[in-house]
């Protein structure tokens, strides 16, 4: 089972393979100085700007209530910015959504797991944008669904009701739906919560292969430790963008400390305590959630320690 999961990344992307005629649009997300507020009028995010292009996995990090989900809702057109503008692949949000350029992998809490749909039905929903208005699946649609299920290792669960799956399996079903959809841009809200380490690294492999395929992914996560593993860009927010850019230069202790303040569990194993010599290097462990972020080196010159998998670049 897990063995199957681990080589997900090898096959071609099913959604697109099934629709070769479709012209590829170069993915991009352009957020320009947006301020977004809910009905109560208080801005949830202020003056947020960043730009992302093709072949990117971007992490979106911040404390609870920093506005990650708000940003997603804005990208999905549920909220309209009071000020500023969002453009997706050069188009206004609604146009981009109409063209099926964006796929969304929801947080588990957003899904009604008692809904009477089977795993196969859910993945087929990814194909609706490719079908005529009666939504009758054709051969290409069925093939895309098969391939997507195969790729996330969920083929044998095709006939299960979605509520009968484990947390990690549920995540994979919705990932498969995004694959079947074949969109150039994929938004993932907390894809790693409730997922074991094996499935987590399988999902990361999958995202990496999608990146190599030219797609753009925006991933919100509290799992700081795995970010250097698979993300090449980071947006750190707390109501507004605190820092954004390549992981190497942006994902630093200083920036994270600013974003998380006292929230982060913060463990220094400092030079003198750690070794009895003049070596001033120290280990810093930052953790928000499951996987800790480990930094090592002299103060303010600490480098990321990439756990076992160092070959992200």
């Amino acid at each position: 089972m897990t063995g199957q999961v681990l080589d997900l990344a090898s096959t071609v992307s099913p959604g697109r393979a099934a629709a070769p005629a479709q012209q590829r649009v170069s993915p991009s997300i352009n957020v320009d100085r947006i301020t977004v507020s809910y009905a109560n009028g208080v801005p949830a995010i202020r003056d947020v700007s960043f730009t992302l292009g093709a072949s990117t996995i971007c992490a979106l990090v911040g404390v609870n209530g920093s506005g990650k989900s708000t940003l997603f809702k804005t990208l999905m057109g549920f909220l309209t910015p009071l000020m500023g503008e969002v453009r997706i692949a050069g188009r206004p949000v609604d146009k981009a959504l109409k063209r099926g350029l964006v796929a969304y992998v929801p947080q588990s809490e957003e899904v009604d797991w008692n809904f009477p749909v089977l795993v196969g039905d859910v993945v087929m929903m990814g194909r609706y944008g490719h079908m005529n208005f009666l939504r009758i699946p054709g051969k290409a649609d069925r093939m895309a669904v098969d391939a997507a299920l195969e790729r996330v290792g969920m083929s044998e669960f095709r006939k299960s009701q979605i509520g009968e799956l484990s947390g990690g399996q549920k995540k994979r079903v919705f990932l498969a739906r995004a694959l079947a959809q074949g969109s150039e841009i994929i938004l993932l809200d907390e894809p790693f919560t409730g997922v074991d380490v094996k499935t987590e690294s399988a999902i990361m492999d999958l995202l990496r292969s999608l990146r190599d395929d030219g797609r753009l992914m925006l991933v919100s996560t509290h799992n700081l430790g795995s970010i250097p593993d698979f993300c090449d860009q980071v947006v750190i927010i707390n109501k507004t963008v605190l820092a954004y850019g390549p992981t190497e230069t942006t994902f630093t202790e200083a920036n994270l400390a600013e974003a998380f303040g006292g929230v982060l569990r913060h463990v220094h194993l400092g030079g003198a305590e750690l070794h009895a010599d003049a070596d001033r290097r120290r280990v810093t462990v930052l953790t928000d959630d499951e996987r800790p972020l480990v930094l090592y080196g002299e103060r303010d010159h600490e480098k990321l320690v990439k756990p076992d998998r160092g070959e992200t670049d």
Partner: protein
Amino acid sequence: MIDLLFEPFGYNYMTKAIWVSALVGAVCAFLSCYLILKGWALMGDALAHSVVPGVALAYMLALPYAIGAFAAGFVAALGITGLRRITRLREDAVIGLVFTTLFAVGLLIVSINPTSVNVQSIILGNILAISDEDVTQVVIIAAASLAILGFRWKDLMLTFFDESHARTVGLDPWRMYIMFFVLLSACAVAALQTVGAVLVVAMVVTPGATAYLLTDRFGVMIWLAMTIGAVTSALGAYVSYFLDGATGGLIVVFQTLVFLAAFVFAPKHGRLAARRAGRKTAEATP
């Protein structure tokens, strides 16, 4: 004996009552599948009650009652969803607020104009005495609703299941909900004739709830619910000939009986199946 069983079909008004009821039962059942999954069961009740002032006004102005009912139902649906959006009140509070207000206004209008309308027939239904004109109205509403649902049921399902995803395939959830509420108001109006405002809620809840116990697939659920809705409604109208009782009451009692049967005997989600499965696991792990 056999003659007695066929007797109702000898009367024009009875055959009409039977098939009109079946049609209305089927459409309401279709909608019930969506309502119960969204936890909006009471919305059906609210709409049916809210329709009363519209009917009363329509009678007063000598308009076809369906137009008044429909307008009122639509105002209620918009009021409920709109209030829900802009206040932080919970759905049930908003529903309670809107529908009691409209129902009260309806009763007020009727009491000021006592001759304008037979409230009894709105609140309790009176399918056996339905006029040809009303039959036409009901049939048009039901047929149009069935046609729209037939074309858009998958899009509605997608919207009800996952709004965000619905957006990514180019649907506008807000528009889909409005369409749904238009259909629901229309069918509540149609159901007024058969079971009356008080029991409409059963028509738009029970068949869906029953079908939900019987399957894990939405498409199958719709077919099951429609069958249950149509058969129980026809049966209710038929039996009311012999019992000389309220058709609405009979229909809803039959629906409840089917529900209870499913609740106990459903192959996967019934009580017996659950107990059997429990016993099996207990045996497997001594």
